């Protein structure tokens, strides 16, 4: 080793003495903070039982689980459930629906709050701006049951305002909710309606953090509104946007159960059924616990892998990443 390192080694106390001291220090710290650990106890216990506990239950994805035999005693059957899922007629349909709903939703739903934030940023009347913001956040807090109820009311073939308008124009009413072709549009655009306002908050916060002198000097250099947005505003919110995009990409194969479940019906099953709703039907309703767990595990693992991949890509591109 180098002479510097050799000297340092010769001058420092022996390794075991260092370890003893640092352990004693750590122990003192722990004892001093004992009440803090006590406070943490129920919290960690909660996560241990309700977040990590079920992960033990994941093993039934590899077993032939019987309710009465219990998890530990049920026999192993390896990857049979996964094979069954991959070979099932539903497999590609579920993957396709999940991906399409997410991709479509992302394609429209990712830029929408950004655009809203950029436009709101240009509104000069403070009062009007606040009113718009307050109103636009409201749908986010309304339950999905109500949102879907509103959708069903508005698109009702007989009494819904949309169809009444259509009939008024002399056209035939469209049964939106029963038409597979409409499902994805309804799903995505109702989501935009619900979340565009709330989603813009974080971008507005980022925009307010941009140095105003940047705008001033750009304006003096003759940059128009669009140019200012493109060269100043957008780069300013890019870090935030990247994080959000990453999270959404990582969840590309995860579509929330609740909204699809509330919105779909027998006619739209072909395009609406996603992995989470399949897991619910097969697992909770049909009680095929082991098989459904396998499907769910497959989903979770893919999502984790996607998240890691996208995060790695963001790291490589020297962009903002999640960790």
């Amino acid at each position, binding site marked *: 080793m180098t002479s510097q390192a050799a000297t340092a080694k010769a001058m420092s106390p022996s390794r075991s003495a260092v370890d003893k001291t640092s352990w004693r220090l750590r122990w003192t710290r722990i004892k001093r903070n004992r009440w803090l650990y006590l406070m*943490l106890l129920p919290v960690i216990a909660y996560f241990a039982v309700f977040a990590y506990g*079920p992960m033990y239950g994941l093993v039934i994805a590899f077993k032939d689980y019987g309710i009465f035999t219990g998890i530990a005693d049920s026999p192993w059957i390896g990857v049979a459930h996964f094979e069954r899922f991959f070979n099932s007629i539903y497999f590609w349909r579920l993957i396709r629906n999940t991906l399409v709903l997410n991709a479509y939703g992302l394609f429209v739903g990712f830029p929408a709050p950004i655009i809203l934030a950029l436009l709101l940023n240009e509104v000069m009347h403070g009062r009007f701006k606040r009113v718009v913001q307050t109103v636009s956040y409201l749908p986010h807090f309304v339950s999905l049951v109500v949102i879907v109820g509103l959708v069903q009311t508005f698109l009702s073939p007989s009494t819904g305002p949309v169809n009444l308008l259509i009939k008024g124009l002399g056209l035939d009413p469209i049964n939106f909710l029963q038409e597979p072709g409409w499902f994805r549009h309804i799903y995505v655009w109702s989501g935009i309606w619900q979340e565009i306002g709330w989603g813009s908050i*974080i971008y507005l916060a980022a925009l307010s953090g941009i140095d105003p002198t940047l705008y001033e000097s750009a304006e003096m250099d003759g940059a128009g509104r669009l140019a200012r947005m493109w060269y100043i505003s957008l780069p300013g919110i890019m870090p935030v946007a990247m994080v959000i995009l990453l999270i959404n990409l990582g969840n590309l194969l995860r579509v929330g159960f609740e909204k699809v479940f509330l919105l779909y019906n027998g006619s739209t099953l072909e395009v609406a059924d996603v992995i989470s709703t399949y897991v619910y039907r097969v697992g909770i309703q049909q009680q095929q616990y082991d098989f*459904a767990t396998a499907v769910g595990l497959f989903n979770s693992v893919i999502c984790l892998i996607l*998240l890691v991949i996208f995060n790695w890509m963001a790291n490589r591109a020297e962009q903002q990443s999640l960790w």
Partner: protein
Amino acid sequence: MTKRWQFGDWVFHSANYLFMTALVLATTYPFIYVLATSVSDPIRVMTGEVWLLPIGLNFDAYDIVLRSKTVWNAYGNTLFYVVAGTSLNVVLTMLGAYPLSRRSLYGRGLFSFIIVFTMFFGAGMIPNFLLVKELGMLNTRWALIIPGAISAWLLIMTRTYLQANIPDELVEAAQMDGANDLMILWRLVVPLSLPILAVIALFYGVGHWNEYVAALIYLRDVSLQPLQVILRQILLAQMGLDLTTMVDDTFKEALMAQTLRPATTIVATLPILLFYPFLQRYFVKGMMVGSLKG
């Protein structure tokens, strides 16, 4: 703002204001429609005459809904879940966030990681269901309170707030005055943390109010169901409940559905709609704290 507007500015700002107004209208209209149809004559609703203002002012729907035992029961259930659930949520979240906000805590990083990891990977619907079953909580009120007792995201948000707003010096000063950590938490930290406690209470509260999936999966008895589940069944006209037995015949039943559905929707959402304007700034503040994360 002394810059004179050019033609381009006029065009842009007009379009922008128009867009914003349209957004406001598009957001509020559905609620106005629901409100209007809930107090209108059912026949007029069915024919589609009602689109903005009520026609044939008629409070029958509310009369039926507000006399329905099922709805009241569900309301009571939801209130219970909101109050009991949120209390537990806030207490546990605070108990977790405060220690993790102290730099001197050994193992802080590890504990934080354990918690944050749960935001990225979970066991899924079925193992969670089986766990609740094993614990004997299935079809009990506890199933809606305990399994979701702590939100990792809200805990981290609280931790961030405490890290920034409760300086170590303050805690050390209290310690030198002889206080132990429990007293510090209760007498010093909590009073100083009321803003963030309000924020997380609101988030948790709204979550409980809107709860549907957990009730769907874990609860069987109608007597335990919260408001959203009952609302859903009414919206799908699946409830042969005491609502419709108050109505005479099947035609009138179908007719009354026109106003019963919006009326129940309003009843189920009213607190949110009423309190929202006053409370929304807390939610927004919470979002900002939470997103400038650690």
